[in-house]
């Protein structure tokens, strides 16, 4: 669909809320459940006001029973409802793994196409201020590994709303991976309902020198790095896959065929992860005639620490992304962005148009 025009800036968490609200307005079978969604904080604002509008039968908290509650959501979905199950941290999905992998993802296939699971899982990655080992993980690769699951990763408020609305309409289990540091970011978000298509990557910035694929919050960091690179005369093409599974590889492939250089910046570990998947597909591609120079960045191969001095070294940032991309694109190691430049880049925020 074409992008609706709008001049309204909306924050990511508001966009998540508005997407759910409009989906619930449109279809009375949509309901939302999850620990704390109906309290005064409303999952950092992203569920605020929904219980007042739709009532406690359609918006309710749950016992701390992630395993069974996931099964309950799946069963309700099988019986014709369209649940949105909210988790304030992605790490808690480990408690839901059995139901998601063994039932949600498999039911349509295992039951010969006679059963559908139109289930939405909303889940948020934490970062910074000591979120630490069990509040910071990006586990999208684990879920994208499994046939039958869909995994989407909105990097901005526009996608937060549009992907939420599309996820609710989808007849499969869809996991929405949100990011805490994106919650306060703004973008141009239409007031009317709209959907963002699954399996369609977005080129956020065009360039001929290097392709940078970012995931979730790393899209934002890659855009900041691209600003620093531009000052050095390097034009990076920044791609947001938007949906991890299904993956629009064609857009990435066309870009790499053009630039001959690929940097993948994942919001996760590299080992056996989504970044490896992209690089593997590039290696297999018959449409990329010259072997491209490839590099991956992501979490350090450690557990996430809490102290800032270690945490800063754990994540890629605009500076390290820019340095890596510069070396890959130019073949030279003669530039490091100045810290005051990086500070300016940190103000960068992509707001659209989409």
């Amino acid at each position: 669909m074409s992008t609706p025009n709008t001049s309204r800036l909306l924050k990511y968490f508001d966009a998540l809320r508005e997407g759910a609200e409009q989906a619930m307005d449109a279809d009375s079978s949509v309901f939302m459940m999850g620990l704390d969604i109906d309290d005064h904080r409303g999952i950092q604002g992203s569920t605020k006001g929904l219980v007042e509008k739709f009532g406690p039968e359609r918006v309710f908290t749950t016992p701390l029973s992630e395993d069974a509650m996931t099964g309950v959501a799946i069963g309700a979905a099988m019986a014709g409802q369209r649940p949105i199950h909210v988790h304030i941290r992605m790490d808690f999905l480990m408690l839901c793994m059995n139901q998601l992998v063994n039932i949600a993802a498999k039911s349509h296939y295992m039951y010969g196409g006679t059963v559908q699971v139109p289930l939405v899982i909303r889940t948020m990655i934490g970062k910074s201020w000591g979120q630490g080992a069990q509040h910071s993980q990006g586990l999208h690769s684990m879920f994208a590994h499994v046939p039958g699951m869909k995994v989407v990763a909105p990097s901005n408020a526009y996608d937060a709303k549009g992907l939420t609305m599309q996820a609710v309409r989808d007849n499969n289990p869809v996991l929405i991976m949100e990011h805490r540091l994106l919650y306060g970011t703004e973008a141009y978000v239409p007031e009317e309902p709209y959907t963002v298509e699954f399996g369609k990557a977005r080129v956020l910035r065009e360039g001929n020198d290097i392709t940078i694929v970012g995931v979730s919050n790393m899209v934002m960091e890659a855009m900041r790095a691209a600003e620093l690179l531009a000052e050095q005369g390097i034009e990076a093409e920044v791609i947001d896959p938007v949906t991890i599974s299904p993956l629009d590889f064609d857009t990435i492939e066309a870009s790499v065929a053009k630039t001959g250089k690929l940097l993948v910046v994942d919001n996760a570990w590299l080992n056996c992860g989504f970044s490896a998947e992209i690089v593997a597909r590039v290696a297999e591609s018959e449409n990329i005639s010259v072997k491209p120079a490839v590099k991956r960045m992501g979490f350090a191969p450690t557990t996430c620490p809490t102290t800032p001095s270690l945490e800063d070294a754990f994540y890629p940032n605009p500076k390290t992304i820019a340095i890596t991309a510069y070396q890959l694109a130019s073949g030279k190691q003669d530039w490091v962005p100045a810290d005051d430049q990086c500070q300016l880049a940190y103000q960068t925020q992509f707001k659209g148009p989409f």
Partner: protein
Amino acid sequence: MTEYSSLEARLYASIALVRRAEEVISEIYPSDKIKSPVHLAIGQEYIAAAVIDHLRETDYAAGTYRGHGVYLAKGGDLNSMMAELYGKKTGCAQGRAGSMHLVEASKGVIGMSAVVGTGIPVAVGHALAIKQQRRNDVVVAFMGDGSTEEGCFSESINFAALHKLPILFVVENNRLAIHEPLYKRWAADTLTERIATYGIPATRFLEPNVLAIHEHVGKVIDDMRSGAGPAFIECHTHRWYEHVGPCEDYDQGYRSLEEGEQWRAKDVYVALGQSLDAKEKAQIDQDVEARIQAAVEFAEQSPFPAPEELYNYVYA
């Protein structure tokens, strides 16, 4: 639908179909025509028969990987089941389920799972949907004693009780988890007492008294349809066959033949049969044999799915 002269005759017909179908499956099994692990419920069929007798087509029943009886009692088609065991395209899941994942959504048979306990919250979710959709249908979730050790069992009962959902939990307590006896797994054999503390009716049946179970469940389900919320029953029972496969295994030493013989002496299939008018019993037996024979022929003559069908149904 066949008319029977009595409740006993109706229950006998339901039990006989499962008993004889599973005996025939066990006879066919060594031929390797059935391409699926089978978990037979021989000796336990009366529980599903008694409970599901109270259900309507729009109600739901959730079974386990030992679920032939639940599937058939709830209206699943015998031909589709047999074809599914054979891996044929005409099976209830077109050869993607085998014996462990039987399903018949159009009859309210919730798809079954091979991961113990996993189906319990899914059944509760169906009960939540019933409540949200303002229907007065109910759900029955069958499970074994092993599943009550899973976290999701307690989580599910708590949530169902909290929201007063229309679901009956039925534990078929055969006192075995694969080969592990109850005393090696439970600190206290007081499951029913424990469940009662959630504030829901909980009743234990130590004996295979099919009519008593039937009567009790009838009342419980009537109450449930008028909003009483969930209930629980525990039925002690006995698995005659091995955990998985077509044979008995008393020679393996993990349980005693003596205990088995005590239960076999109380076989509901035999007792109910003996209570019937001989002519009606003979008619039921004849119908059962004919249906099973037809199902085996249907399964044998049906085609396998074509290899290119592998990719069907990954996504809805």
